[in-house]
């Protein structure tokens, strides 16, 4: 989840999010270098006492400041296209989970083997126990096994919602009448928080998403327990 005064992304929990982090570092470094150079030029222009009233044009510098930005843009575009296509790849998922958005909660359906369906409501602030996160905790978490490609089919039952978990590098709009597909591989065990990312009414800010990644044995124990309860 996010930390107070956080400046960057949340820690990555999937290989795709790691790639996004690295690309962001690359692009941001280029942006820092260009901004520093521009700021230096501005300061130099403003503080100089030299003048030249007779310069009309210069072909060499024009070539430079056409070619160099174009090359820089290509250097940004190549990793960007790579990450973009990487995000679209869905390699043989082990598990398919349906995440359905409602006003104002999510429901998860694990229907590959048994018919496991449950709703996930936000824990109200007055019901939080010490150590829990306000406006982020839910009564039921979406539990997934680690190191397994998971396909998430996202849709909505009433209005637009969006299923987003920043640590997993995943955001997919939930459109009523439409099935959207996204996938991730949780590389490490942990609890990852996200929030509904498409305005959906009064409690849009109060329908969070909690994904808990556990080793496969624990996932199987959890599904057995949920089947008994539900």
């Amino acid at each position: 989840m996010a930390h107070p005064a956080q400046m960057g992304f949340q820690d990555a929990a999937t290989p795709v999010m790691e790639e996004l982090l690295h690309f962001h570092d690359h692009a941001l470094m280029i942006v820092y270098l260009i901004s520093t150079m521009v700021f230096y030029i501005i300061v130099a222009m403003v503080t100089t006492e030299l003048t030249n009233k007779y310069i009309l044009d210069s072909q060499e510098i024009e070539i430079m400041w056409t070619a160099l930005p174009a090359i820089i843009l290509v250097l940004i575009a190549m990793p960007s296209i790579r990450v973009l296509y990487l995000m679209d790849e869905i390699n043989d998922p082990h598990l398919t989970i349906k995440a359905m958005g409602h006003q104002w909660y999510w429901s998860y359906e694990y229907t590959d083997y048994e018919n496991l369906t449950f709703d996930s409501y936000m824990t109200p602030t007055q019901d939080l126990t010490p150590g829990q996160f306000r406006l982020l905790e839910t009564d039921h978490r979406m539990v997934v096994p680690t190191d397994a490609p998971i396909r998430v089919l996202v849709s909505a039952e009433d209005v637009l919602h969006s299923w987003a978990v920043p640590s997993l590098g995943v955001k997919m709009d939930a459109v009523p009448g439409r099935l959207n597909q996204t996938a991730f591989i949780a590389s490490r065990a942990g609890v990852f928080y996200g929030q509904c990312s498409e305005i959906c009414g009064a409690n849009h800010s109060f329908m969070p998403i909690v994904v808990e990644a556990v080793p496969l044995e624990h996932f199987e124990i959890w599904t057995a327990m949920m089947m008994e309860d539900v």
Partner: protein
Amino acid sequence: MLSTVSRQLRSHPALIPLFIFIGGGCTMSLSYLARLALRNPDVCWDRKNNPEPWNKMAPTDQYKFYTVNMDYSKLKKDRPDF
């Protein structure tokens, strides 16, 4: 038109990289659009003979422009024919 441009280019050679990059960018965009129009299975050109090409997708075909990790030739076809 071309003679005017080449005359101006000779006196302002800084325009040459501009032509190269803008021309290259336009070429790349238009070829990608053409690839999408002709190769994308979501596009239907011939309503009589090939009305729904998206129903004829094989699992081993690569429809995307670039693959990072996936090897489409290794995928098996485990679904029935439509």
